[in-house]
C-alpha cells in the first residue's frame, strides 16, 4: 500500500523527471563532443550553440503553448510563418534602419492574424489542428511565392543584423533576447491567469468549459500567440542570416515539435512547460552539431537523430496511461 502510493507519487512527477533526463542527455552529448574535439566545449562554441538554439527555442515557444492547450493541438504552420516573416521584414525594410520599425510591426501583425485564422478554424470550424495548420502552411507558402515572385529582395537593416550576429560583452544578442523571452513566458505560464488556465484546459477541455473558462478565447488566443512567436523568429532569423530565401522556416517545423516533446511536454496537452522546451531545443542543437563535428554523413546523422529521439521518448512514456 505504502509502496504503491510512493510509486504513484513518483510517477506524478514524471514531467519533472523527464526534464532532468533531458538536461542530463544534453550535458552528456556536450561532454562527448568535448572528448572528440576540445574545441567543442570552448566557451565561444558553447555560446554559438546557444545562439543557434535560440532560434529553434523561439520557434518552439508557440509550439509549446499550442501543445499545452490540448485538443491534439499542434502548429505545423510555424515554418511557413517564419519564412513569410523574414521575407516581409526584408522586403519592407529594404535594408534600411529607418524602415525597420514599420516592417517589424507589419510582420508581427500578420503573424498574429495568421495564428488567429488557425485558431478560429480549429476552434470554431472544428478542423483538426494538424490539418488546419498544414493547410495554412501551404497557403502561406503560396502567398510568399506570389509576393516575392520567387525572388525575395532586400536584406536585413544593419540594426537587425547586429542583433542577429552581434555580441555584447562576448555574449551573442540572440541569447540575451531568448533569455528575455524565456523569462517572460515562464512568468506568464506560472503566474498569470492565462498560463494557469492553459494547463487546466489542456488537461480537460470540457471540464474547463463547464467550470466557466472562456475556452474559445484561450485556445484561439494561443494559436495567435504561436503566430506571434513565429513572426519574432522570422525577424531574428533574417538578422542572423542577413538575407533571405524561400522557405527558410521549413527546417523548424518538425524540430519545434521535437523540442517540445523532448522537453517533457505531453502531446496530449496539460502537462509540461517552456523551460523543458528550452532544454529540448538546446539538446537537439547540440546533438546535430555533435554529429556534424564527428563528420557524419547526412544519412547517418538522420538515423542517429531519430534513434536518440525515440530512446528519449520511450523513457518518458514509461508511465501508466491511466491512474
Amino acid at each position, binding site marked *: 500500500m505504502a509502496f504503491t*502510493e510512493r510509486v*504513484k*507519487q513518483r510517477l*506524478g512527477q514524471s514531467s519533472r523527471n523527464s526534464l532532468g533526463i533531458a538536461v542530463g542527455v544534453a550535458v552528456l552529448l556536450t561532454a562527448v563532443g568535448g572528448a572528440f574535439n576540445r574545441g567543442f566545449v570552448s566557451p565561444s562554441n558553447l555560446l554559438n550553440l546557444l545562439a543557434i538554439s535560440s532560434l529553434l527555442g523561439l520557434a518552439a515557444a508557440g509550439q509549446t503553448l499550442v501543445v499545452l492547450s490540448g485538443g491534439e493541438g499542434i502548429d505545423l504552420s510555424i515554418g511557413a510563418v517564419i519564412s513569410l516573416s523574414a521575407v516581409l521584414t526584408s522586403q519592407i525594410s529594404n535594408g534600411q534602419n529607418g524602415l525597420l520599425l514599420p516592417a517589424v510591426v507589419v510582420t508581427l501583425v500578420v503573424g498574429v492574424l495568421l495564428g488567429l485564422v488557425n485558431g478560429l478554424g480549429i476552434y470554431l470550424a472544428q478542423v483538426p489542428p494538424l490539418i488546419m495548420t498544414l493547410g495554412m502552411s501551404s497557403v502561406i507558402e503560396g502567398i510568399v511565392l506570389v509576393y516575392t515572385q520567387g525572388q525575395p529582395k532586400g536584406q536585413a537593416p544593419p540594426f537587425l543584423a547586429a542583433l542577429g550576429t552581434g555580441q555584447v560583452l562576448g555574449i551573442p544578442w540572440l541569447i540575451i533576447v531568448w533569455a528575455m523571452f524565456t523569462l517572460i513566458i515562464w512568468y506568464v505560464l506560472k*503566474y*498569470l*491567469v*492565462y*498560463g*494557469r*488556465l492553459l*494547463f*487546466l484546459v489542456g*488537461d*480537460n477541455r*470540457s*471540464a*474547463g*468549459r*463547464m*467550470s*466557466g*473558462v*472562456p*475556452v*474559445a*478565447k*484561450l485556445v484561439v*488566443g494561443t494559436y495567435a500567440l504561436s503566430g506571434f512567436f513565429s513572426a519574432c523568429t522570422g525577424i531574428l532569423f533574417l538578422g542572423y542570416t542577413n538575407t533571405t530565401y524561400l522557405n527558410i522556416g521549413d527546417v523548424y517545423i518538425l524540430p519545434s515539435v521535437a523540442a517540445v516533446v523532448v522537453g517533457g511536454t505531453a502531446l496530449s496537452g*496539460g*502537462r509540461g512547460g517552456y523551460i523543458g522546451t528550452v532544454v529540448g531545443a538546446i539538446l537537439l542543437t547540440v546533438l546535430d552539431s555533435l554529429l556534424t563535428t564527428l563528420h557524419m554523413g547526412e544519412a547517418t546523422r538522420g538515423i542517429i537523430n531519430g534513434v536518440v529521439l525515440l530512446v528519449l521518448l520511450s523513457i518518458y512514456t514509461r508511465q501508466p496511461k*491511466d*491512474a
Partner: protein
Amino acid sequence: MLTIEGLRKEYGAVVALQGASLSLVPGTIHALLGANGSGKSTLVKMLGGVVRPTEGMIWVDEQRLETGSPAHAIHQGIAVSYQETSLVPSMSVADNLLLGIEPTGKAGYVARRAIRERAAEILDQLELNIPPDVPVAELPTNAQHLLEIGKALVKRPKYLVLDEATAALRREEVKRLFSIVCGLRDEGAAILFVSHRFDEVYAICDRATVLRNGAVVGTRSLSKTSREELIQDMIGQRISLEPVRQETGNSIKKQSLRLKARSLTNSELGGVDLEVSAGEIVGIGGLQGQGQTALLRALIGAILVRGDLETEGHRGLFRNPSHAAESGVRFISGDRGREGVFGQRSIYENIMIGRIATSPLWQRAWQRGKNRAVRDLVEQLKIVHHSLTQEVRGLSGGNQQKVLFARTLASRPNVVILDDPTKGVDVSTRMEIHRLLRSMAGAGVGLLIASSDDEELAGVCDRVLIMYEGRIVRELTGDLQPSHITKASIEGAQSEKGKGAETRADSL
C-alpha cells in the same frame, strides 16, 4: 422458454439487482416495469450478455446461457434493442444492421452484396426510407432508435428484448413497431418489453413483472391488474435513511430571486418556466431522460435554447458556461471524469480555477492568502489527501466530488446548478454533500438540483419540479416524501400522455 433464476449484480458495495427471477413464454409479450434505478437496464444488459451477473443463471430452452457473452446470447436467439443504442456512428446503416452476423462467402470474406440486400430487406420491413450506405451518425435520433430495433430484428430472434424502444419514436413509428412485434409474437417469439408508458404496456403486453430497488415485486397478468396496483408495486413503502431536513434556508427565502427562466424551448425542452430564490433548493425529478440534463445545460448556455432568463445583474440567455459563470451561475456536471475534474492537475489548481476561471487572462493568478483559502476549503470539506499538489485523479470518487464543491465554493456563486451531485459516492460522503448543500443554501445561494434519486430530492430540496418529455408537469412542495416524487414521476408520464395515448391504444 427463457428462464431467469436469481440474477444478482453488485457494483462494489452497490447492489443493482438482488436476485431477480422471471420467465419469458414463447408467443407472449412480457412487460418489465420499475422506477429509476430499480434494475431494469441491468437485467436487460445481462440478457444481452453485456453485463455478467455476480450470481444467478439464465436458461434458454433447457440450456444454460453462458453469461457475459454477447455472441452466445445472439447464438441462443436473444436479441436486444438497447436504450442507449449500440450502433457504431461512423459505420454505414447496412454494416450496423448486420454487425457481428455478417454473411460470409466461401473463403470467409464478408459478402458485401449480401449485406446490402439483407439490410435493404429489413429497412423495407421497418418502412425506413433511408439508404443503407449512409453513416449512422448522419441519421436523426428517431431513425437511429429504429435502426437499433432493426438491428435486433434482423437476427430473427426467438427472444426479443426492447429496452425503452419507443421513447424516442413518433406515434406512427410506434404503431409500425407494434405491428411488427405482434407479428413476431404470433410466430412464436417471446418479447420482453421494458417501458414506462402504461398505455403501451396495456396495449400489447400479456404479463408484467415489476422491479423495485433491484428486486422482483411480482409478476401479474395485465388483464386482471389495474394501473394503480402496478404503480403501488413500483413505489412500495420505502424507508428513508436520510436525516430530517433542517429548514436553514427558510429565513431568507423569497427575499430575492436568484434565477428566473421563462419558456425555455429547444428540441428537448417544451417551454420550461422556473424560478430559484436565494437560500432555496429546488429539485428536478422525473423519470430518466425527460429533459433534465438538457434543462440544466440550457440554463448555463452550454446548449442552444430559446426563451428568456434573468439573474441578478443580468438579463437574457447565457451565451456559454463562461458567460454564466461571470454572473455567478456555476454548474457541477454529473459526468465528473469528463466534465468535472482536471485529473492530471493538482488539488490546489482544481479548486483555484473556481476563483480565476473568469478573471482577465493577463491578470496575476496567485496572490498571497489564496493559498490559505484553498487549504481552509479542503479542511472544511474533509477532502482526504496527502498533499495539495497531489494529482486529483488519485482521489476516490467521493473526494473528487468534494473537490468540485470546493471549486464551486471558491467561486462565491449566486446560483449553483447540479446534475446528480452524489452519483457514485459512498453513503457517508453523500450525507456530507447533502449537509453542504443545505449550508450553501443557508448562506443565500440558490440551488437547482437534478437527480434520478427520489430519496435525495425528498431529503434535501424545498420543492421539487417533475419533468416529463421536456416539460415541467408537476410541482411538489411542503412535506416531501420519496414515494410521492416517484409516484408523481410515473403519473406524470400517464396524465401527460392521457388523451393522445388512448386514441393510440384504440388504433392498435
